[in-house]
Every structure is written in structure tokens, then in C-alpha cells.
């Protein structure tokens, strides 16, 4: 059978071009890879190579012809023993398979388009019951995180920790204290200062089936590694059609510590929580830190676990249980209330908790929700609360534009507009790089007074 040579598309956008020159004539023998013609596209002059072997039987389009549509038959190639007589009359341009192969949305009437499937709802399990009589132990967030890692490392040989100063030094913030002694240097790995590289090494190890915990000394430095977190860790499961993903935890302190200036004080909550393929956890209490870090380590997906240096030393009650694991994706109602809802997470909770106490004195009964997980976000719990209170204030330390609060506000507006009795207010850090001077730093962060004022405003008080 003679083989048709078609006008090729030589860029993702080319629809037609000029057949500027034939480099072979009828009767010429060609083999794969031979340049047979030159074509001018909208961008450049390109060479067309033969794919098959044979003899040029007929050139159907003259050199110099303009506006030759992609997929028009331009020549016919004869196979061994075929004669030019085998060629019928030049066929009209073949229907471009492009149209059927690629469903260009604008070409089809809206009704004919496949409808976008609904996004599946993520259902998070409820917190486990804590048996009556369980001993509650006052624990710092620091100890809770360490215990979580140690317990999971005892449980699963594939879990290991890597990062700067995690082993010999016992952790820059002492979160990995004692792990080297218990698990040895094979599983507690000091890395050079090489965030981009060791994040990639961690993701590669996870793709091979290990379960790395990658500690960033702080998340400020993870900007060096964000390509590996997002492009490699978060997207591989999708890009591989489910064949392989990255069961990895990226953890470390996030957000402002104290007086460390602009480059060491950024909150990345909203950055990571935008990315499909990641889970993002940002705990406030020690119990949540422990239960959620254990869950993160067991989770088969990449989890970004955002801690806070200031909270490391805070103490909370942690149930003394052999295996205390909390569900990722479930908010926790920190305090029940009826008049107004505050939603916060991480260190933002410290402002919210104080504001709630003050407001109580003034007779305002706040329902305080700790999101705990930012992705998947437990919006149903927020919506339920807003349906009851009709008023919402969000509190976080990060920058105000495109913040977690503005995201919550948008979604509550869309899903519970009729229940709102006042505009939603979002309290965030100020729109400035973190200043060093003590007074300015204080001004740049949210404060309890702002939260109190916002709550009064939405209560019209």
C-alpha cells in the first residue's frame, strides 16, 4: 500500500503552513530520517523527515504553496514493487484527526462537552474515643513530636529521619532529642546544608517505598526545596496514574519565632495548602501534634507538617495511650459557643484562646474551632458552626493577601451566605516583611486586641 505523507503540525499551535521547498523529487528513494521538504510555520522554517522507506511516487502539493492545512496529503510514498499507477487521484485534505484527538473546548457547543465531574468529598474520621480514666500527662509540644517520631520508628523499620543537625546535635530545636541514641545513624541521618538536594533525596527514597521524615531546620529554608516538595512529591502519584507516590513527611518550625527578622519569619500555611497532592497539618496543642504527626508518618501521601518554634515549649495534656493517632483532615472544636465563630490554627490559636477568655467576660460566647489540618480542610465543621452563630472571624499569623482566612471566607460566603449575619473578618499578619525592631515586630503580628475588636464588630457590639 502506498503511504500518504501528510502536512505535519510542527508546534503545539500550528494549523497551517507554507510548503516552501521539496528536497526530494518524484522517483527519489528515501529512507527513514531523510529530509524530504521544508515547511514554514508561524515561528520558523522546519525540516520534514521521512518516517518510512520507499520511493517518492508523487508530489501532490507544489513547492511554494501557502496555507497548506495540517494533515493535508502532500506526497505519496511507494513501497517495494509498487508503481505510481497505484496512486489514485489526489484526495482532498483528510479530516484532521487533531479535532477528534484533542477535544478543543471552544470548538464544541457547551452542551456537547463532557461535564466536569464533581470533586469527591473527603470524609475524615472522628477523633478516637479516649477511654474514661485515661491518665493525662502534661507534655510540651516538643516532647510530643519526639514521642510521635520515636513510636512510629519503633513500629516501622522503613521510617527514618533526615535533616540538618537532627542526629549528633539532637535537633536544632531539640525535637529529635534521643533518636540517634535509640535508632542509630542509619535511621537518624545528619545531612549537609543542602535543602534542595536532601528534599529530593527524601522524595526519591519515598518513591522507592521508604517513609522519610524530612526535617527542615525551619520552613523558611524549605523555599530552597519547594520544587521537590511540589513538583516531585505532590504530583508524582497523579502523573504516574497511581503507580507510585511519595509517603513522606516534611516537618519543621514554620512562621515567626521572635526577633529573627524578615527572612526567618514567614508562615507558609497558605502556600502549601494550595497544592493538590499534599496534605498540610498545622497543630496547636501537644496532643494534636503527637496524634497528627503519627498519622502523617503513616499516611501514604506527602504531608507538610508545620510546627512553630514558640509553641515547642508550651505544655498541654496528652492522653497516655499506647497508640494515640488522630485523623488528618478533621477540625477540633476547642470551645463550644453560640454567639460567634472563630476559626484559627497553629500559633494563631494563642491569640484566639486569649480573646475568647476576654470576650467571655463581656458576655460574648465564642465557638472556637482549631482547624489542625489545612488540607484537606474540614470546612463542614466550620459551616456547621457558622449556621449556628451567623458570624465568623479567622485568625492566623501569615500575610493577609490570599491567606487561609480569605479562603475560608470565600467558601463560607459561597456555601452559607444565607446564614451570615455580618461580613466575615480575617485577622492576619500585616502586609509587610517581618521587621526586627521589637515594637515593629509586635505591630506586624496579629494581637489579641484585634481579635477581640473583630469579634465585637461582627457582633455589632
Amino acid at each position, binding site marked *: 500500500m502506498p503511504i500518504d505523507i*501528510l*502536512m*505535519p*503540525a*510542527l*508546534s*503545539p499551535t*500550528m494549523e497551517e503552513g507554507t510548503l516552501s521547498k521539496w528536497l526530494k523529487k518524484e522517483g527519489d528513494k528515501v529512507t*527513514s*530520517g531523510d529530509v524530504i521538504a521544508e515547511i514554514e510555520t508561524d*515561528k*520558523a522554517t522546519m*525540516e*520534514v*523527515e521521512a*518516517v518510512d522507506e520507499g520511493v517518492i511516487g508523487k508530489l501532490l502539493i507544489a513547492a511554494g504553496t501557502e496555507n497548506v492545512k*495540517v*494533515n493535508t496529503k502532500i506526497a505519496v510514498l511507494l513501497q517495494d514493487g509498487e508503481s505510481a499507477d497505484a496512486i489514485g487521484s489526489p484526495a482532498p485534505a483528510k479530516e*484532521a*484527526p*487533531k479535532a477528534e*484527538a*484533542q*477535544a478543543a473546548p471552544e470548538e464544541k457547543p457547551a452542551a456537547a462537552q463532557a*461535564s*466536569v*465531574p464533581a470533586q469527591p468529598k473527603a470524609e475524615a474520621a472522628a477523633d478516637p474515643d479516649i477511654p474514661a480514666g485515661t491518665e493525662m500527662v502534661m507534655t510540651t509540644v516538643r516532647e510530643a513530636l519526639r514521642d510521635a517520631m520515636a513510636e512510629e520508628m519503633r513500629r516501622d523499620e522503613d521510617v*527514618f529521619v533526615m535533616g540538618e543537625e537532627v542526629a549528633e546535635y539532637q535537633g536544632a530545636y531539640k525535637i529529635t532529642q534521643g533518636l540517634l541514641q535509640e535508632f542509630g545513624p*542509619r535511621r537518624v541521618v545528619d545531612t*549537609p546544608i*543542602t535543602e*534542595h*538536594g*536532601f528534599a*529530593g*533525596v*527524601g*522524595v*526519591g*527514597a519515598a*518513591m*522507592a*517505598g*521508604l517513609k522519610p521524615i524530612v526535617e527542615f531546620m525551619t520552613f523558611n529554608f524549605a523555599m530552597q526545596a519547594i*520544587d*521537590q516538595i511540589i*513538583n*516531585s512529591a505532590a504530583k*508524582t*502519584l*497523579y*502523573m*504516574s*496514574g*497511581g*503507580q507510585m507516590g511519595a509517603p513522606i513527611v516534611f516537618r519543621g518550625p514554620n512562621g515567626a519565632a521572635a526577633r529573627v527578622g524578615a527572612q526567618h519569619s514567614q508562615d507558609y500555611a497558605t502556600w502549601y495548602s494550595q497544592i*493538590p*497532592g499534599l*496534605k498540610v497539618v498545622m497543630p496547636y496543642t501537644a496532643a494534636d501534634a503527637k496524634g497528627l504527626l503519627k498519622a502523617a508518618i503513616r499516611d501514604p*501521601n506527602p504531608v507538610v507538617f508545620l510546627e512553630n518554634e514558640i509553641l515547642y515549649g508550651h505544655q498541654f495534656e496528652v492522653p497516655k495511650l499506647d497508640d494515640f493517632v488522630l485523623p488528618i483532615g478533621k477540625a477540633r472544636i476547642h470551645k463550644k459557643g453560640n454567639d460567634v465563630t472563630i476559626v484559627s490554627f497553629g500559633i494563631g490559636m494563642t491569640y484566639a484562646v486569649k480573646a475568647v477568655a476576654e470576650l467571655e467576660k463581656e458576655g460574648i460566647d465564642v465557638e472556637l474551632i482549631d482547624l489542625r489540618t489545612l488540607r484537606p480542610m474540614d470546612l463542614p465543621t466550620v459551616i456547621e458552626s457558622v449556621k449556628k452563630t451567623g458570624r465568623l472571624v479567622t485568625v492566623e499569623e501569615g500575610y493577609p493577601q490570599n491567606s487561609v482566612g480569605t479562603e475560608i471566607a470565600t467558601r463560607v460566603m459561597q456555601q452559607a451566605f444565607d446564614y451570615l449575619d455580618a461580613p466575615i473578618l480575617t485577622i492576619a499578619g500585616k502586609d509587610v516583611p517581618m521587621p526586627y525592631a521589637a515594637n515593629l515586630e509586635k505591630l506586624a503580628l496579629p494581637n489579641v486586641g484585634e481579635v477581640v475588636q473583630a469579634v465585637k464588630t461582627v457582633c455589632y457590639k
Partner: protein
Amino acid sequence: MAPTKTASVSGRKPAAKSAIKSASKSSAKEFTGKNTPDFGKDQDLHAYREMLLIRRFEEKAGQLYGMGFIGGFCHLYIGQEAVVVGMQMAQQEGDQVITAYRDHGHMLATGMSARGVMAELTGRKGGYSRGKGGSMHMFSKEKHFYGGHGIVGAQVSLGTGLAFANRYRGNDSVSVAYFGDGAANQGQVYESFNMAALWKLPIVYIVENNRYAMGTSTARATAQSNYSLRGSGFGIPGIQVDGMDVRAVKAAGDEALEHCRSGQGPIILEMLTYRYRGHSMSDPAKYRSKDEVQKMRSEHDPIEQVRLRLLEKGWATEDELKAIDKDIRDVVSDSADFAQADPEPDPSELYTDILL
């Protein structure tokens, strides 16, 4: 056509032995890179078949791109076939392979099916990633192929992580990480070299030096164009290899893999190679002369070298080679037919494989 019999690539004789021997004082072994034992009949026939499969597959992919069946970027491997085929012949079951976006050849060499790869190129359900990855992002757990990565240099750190996992588990596998001469200038490559050398990770770093990163020649982009020396600051030995000669690749691969498997840490193989086509389908390749391309094609073509050897030694007749060619064309046509007929992924696939 007069393919040279020597193992050197035109204009780029591998550097003097003294310059390419192990940069590491502690490493007793000297790497020659000139150890090019002849192939036996079966090896040559195998290499011929494998390289031809890649060549024909890529030609077909180029054609399907021209017809609009393949979208976006499509980077062909034509000209570089000896690199992956020679390495694959040196590897053992369980060794992992990872590379960038010029990945079709690597996948076929690991034994992934032509149908699955082609159908991924056309974005169809039967593709290796069910149509959700495309030309640059494909994987096969079964064949230990870890992608297919679109970010230049990222695969080097990821491949180092695969090697980390091998060492952690104490198994015998080696990670083989491919990257381009352009990628070799990325910072994370050196971060990875450092960790791999520090931890003695079993990884072969393969620089596929095809002389260009898009339109930028190595001369315009790199201060040290002998990429085999790029590990010297970390004590990583390197070998410059004629990447157009599948025998030289296999021999260097044997040496390198043995080095890694015996616990001596990473090694770099710089493959001197050449891509015949533009960077991607829409690159007219105006940054190099036609003569340069023509010279490589006519004097150093990796497939032609084997073909002539097979004929010269009487290991195959023209007719037998034609039969092989026909077999391969059939495999490739079948993959193209499949990739055009196979349906696109179901719309419900939009939201699957995001989280487990």
C-alpha cells in the same frame, strides 16, 4: 557512509587518560573508558534490535505529533539510542532507572511496552500513566523506571534518593540517574553528588552530553565541559565514554555498576552523544550547522555501526536485517494504532490518584 571503527566520537576524542582517571585518591581503581570489548553475535543482534526499536518508535512519535495526536512537548531520543541500550545491557534486575523528559528511549530499553508508552504520548487510557502524565511523566514500578521528570535536574536528587533506599535496605541494586549536559549545571546535582559521595550511595550518574541544552551549546554554558570531571571535588570518579558506540557504553556501564555494587559509592559516566532532531518537535535547530548533524549521522550513527558489524562478520544477512526491521515496524505500527484507537481517560479520572 563510512562509520569509523575507532571508539571515538568525531571531534570529541575522549580526553587523555590521565585527565579522566578516578579523581579520588582513595579509589585504587583506574577507569579507562577505553575498554571496548567486541560484542558477540547475540549481543550485537540484541543491541541492534533494541536501538532500532527506539529509533522507529521515535520516528513514529514524531509523525503522530505532526498529525496532532501528540500534544505539548515531545522530545525525541533519535541519535542517542546507544546510551540507554548499552547501559540496560550492563544492568541487572532491580536496578532503578530515572531520567528527565527525553525519556521514551529509556522506557523502551527497560522493557516497558511500546503500546503503553505511545498511548501515554497520545494521552489515552491505556498509557502508562492512564493519560495523566504525558510524554515527560511516565513511570513503571514493575520495570523499576522512576520517571520521566520535567524539571531539569530534579531527577538527579530523586535518583540519589533511590540509591539511598538501596543502601538503607542493604540490597544489591544500583540507581542509574540520567541527565543532560544542561542539567549538569543545576545546583541540586552537586548537592546530590556531595551526599552520594559522603554516604557512598550506589548510583551511576550518567551525563548524556548531546552538546546542546535547547539552543545553548555546552561551550556557551559551561566552564568545565569535561563532565566526567564534575565529581572531582567530591572524589567521585568519572569516565568519558563514546556514547555512540553501544559496546563502549556497555563496557563502561559494567565497570561503573561493579564499582557501585562493591560499595565504593557513586560514579559518573559522561556519554558523548548527539541528538539528531531539534530539542523538541517545534525546534528548528538553527543553532547548529546541517553539516554537523550530517557528519554525526553518516559517520557515527549508533545503529549503523552495529548494522555494518553484523554484515561484516556474517552474523546477519541483509534479508535477515530487513526481517528484523519489519518486526520492529510492526511493533511500532501496532503501538501507534493502539494509541490512536484507545479512548481518552474517563472524565472520572480527573479526581483520581491525587491522594491515596
